[in-house]
């Protein structure tokens, strides 16, 4: 029986969705390796321990609460040290985290500290025994790689949204975990800039409306915003052409060198469908494209394409969606 250590990511006083997904993946792995325990590390400012119960709901047996004012900001060195020290002490089979901005940063730090093999951005844990086999999309999602990790423990970061959080009611016991201070020189967070409020993050959104150079001018991006509003809780993305021109911040860029997304619905507005853009959104469930050029490559992968001028079609679509959703 092997226990699994999982990082339950939070920001401020809230758990992030990926925390529940990571706990779900950890629960499944613990069950597959003979029913060991899942221990979730919950680190944050004073009071974060109040969220421990939520982690039990998704299958954690114990929640290790590390409270410190240092954790108000992303204290990466101290977090990595705290998780790695715990992993060393407890004879864990695996350390699991999300492949989020925080988890991508922490995973390799923890693996290096433990001298453990690591697999990043895992979409499936295929089998576990003496070795652990995982699937990870490489080559910007163009080739699915099956990786075998030998040794124990291993570090695995799971792709956000790839593991659906499953309730698995446990009453988790709560334990205190003493934060381990960073040793040596560290990074200082000088400021944190919050993005536009009221919109979900691209990684969490089930609907994404994304705009390209076909919108012609920065001010026309409001058509994309309005369509996103009409759908309710939708996020807004962009192509690199648009972020390069400064119409939108780089953080909105979707594609090979931007965010990789997989929503239920992706609406491409005035986007040609360059291969580097497709690399970031081709796994979306349903793709809609609006483009005036019927030869645009985006139409090769769009479930529903409309050939037309976005400046006419998008406002009409916004009005029609509002009408269709007016009971919501």
């Amino acid at each position, binding site marked *: 029986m092997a226990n699994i250590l999982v990082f339950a990511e939070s920001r401020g006083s809230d758990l992030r969705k990926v925390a529940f997904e990571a706990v779900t993946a950890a629960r499944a792995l613990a069950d597959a390796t003979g029913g060991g325990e899942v221990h979730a590390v919950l680190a944050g400012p004073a009071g974060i321990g109040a969220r421990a119960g939520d982690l039990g709901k998704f299958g954690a047996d114990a929640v290790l609460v590390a409270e410190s004012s240092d954790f108000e900001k*992303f204290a990466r060195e101290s977090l990595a040290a705290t998780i790695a020290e715990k992993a060393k002490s407890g004879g864990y089979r695996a350390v699991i985290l999300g492949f989020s901005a925080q988890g991508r940063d922490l995973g390799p730090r923890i693996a290096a500290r433990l001298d453990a093999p690591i697999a990043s951005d895992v979409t499936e844990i295929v089998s576990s025994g003496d070795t652990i086999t995982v699937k990870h999309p490489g080559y910007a999602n163009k080739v699915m790689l099956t990786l075998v990790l030998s040794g124990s423990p291993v570090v695995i970061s799971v792709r956000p949204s790839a593991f659906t959080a499953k309730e698995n009611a446990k009453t988790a016991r709560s334990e205190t975990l003493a934060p381990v201070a960073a040793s040596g020189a560290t990074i200082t967070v000088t400021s944190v800039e919050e993005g536009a409020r009221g919109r979900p993050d691209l990684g969490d959104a089930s609907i994404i409306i994304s705009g390209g150079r076909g919108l012609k001018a920065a001010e026309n991006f409001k058509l994309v915003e309005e369509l996103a509003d009409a759908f309710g809780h939708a996020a807004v993305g962009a192509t690199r052409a648009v972020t390069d021109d400064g119409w939108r911040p780089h953080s909105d*860029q979707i594609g090979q060198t931007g965010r990789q997304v997989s929503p239920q619905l992706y609406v491409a507005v005035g986007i040609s469908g360059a291969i580097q853009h497709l690399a970031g959104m081709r796994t979306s469930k349903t793709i809609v494209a609006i483009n005036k050029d019927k030869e645009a490559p985006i139409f090769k992968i769009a479930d529903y394409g409309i050939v037309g001028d976005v400046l*006419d079609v998008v406002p009409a679509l916004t009005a029609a969606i509002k009408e269709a959703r007016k009971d919501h």
Partner: protein
Amino acid sequence: MKIAVCIKRTPDSESRFKIAASGAAIDEAGLKFDIDDFASYAVEAALQLNEKAGGGESVVIALGPDNVQEALRKAMSMGVDRAVHLKVDAVPADGIAVAKALAAELKDGGYDLVLFGKHAFDSSAGVVGTAVAELLGVPCVTAASQLSVDGGKGIARRELEGAAEMVSFPLPAVVTIDEGVARPRYPSLKGIMAAKKKPLESKPAQLGAIRVTLQKAELPPERPAGRIIGEGVAAVPELVRLLQTEAKVI
């Protein structure tokens, strides 16, 4: 500043990939290879930082078979001063093993800054740079979308989901480079000629144990062919109907 950049050689991202007969690799026949995209941003960032500082030295390091020397020459043709080739028969899928070999080379190099790509196109892992920093015991900023150095102190911006943080850090340090920092310049003819005479040292890499192996490579299922449902505003009602009844997203 003395800056090292670790670069990987990866296939052109526009390629159509096929799986090799072994089933555990891509078929490299006919593919074009180059410096990996994010690593090429890192090369450019190193050049710009030293240009701004009015001097310094830049070194590129690549671990791989002999064919990585081409990528090292390309970086030198962009302006990097010298190159180190850490020779192995094949680059393993184990990022920690690669990091150990790179860290062994970097340890006594006296570098102020070591730059990496945020992740490599092929592995799409984002492990090597951060692991090297841990092995060297220096601060590491991951996925920087802006980077500057002033008075021996680094400043960077990082994009978080729906937010961004500004960080400062002491040197020496490791930084992994995201979109936004710099786009690579094209080598000039003069640069290409100069690169031929720049020093390229080749030596065996110390990989250590390899604990992550690639068992299988597969192409993901193709999407069904796209379908145009109509033209202009007139097609909107049909789209809404399909979104309601077929895709069931409204």
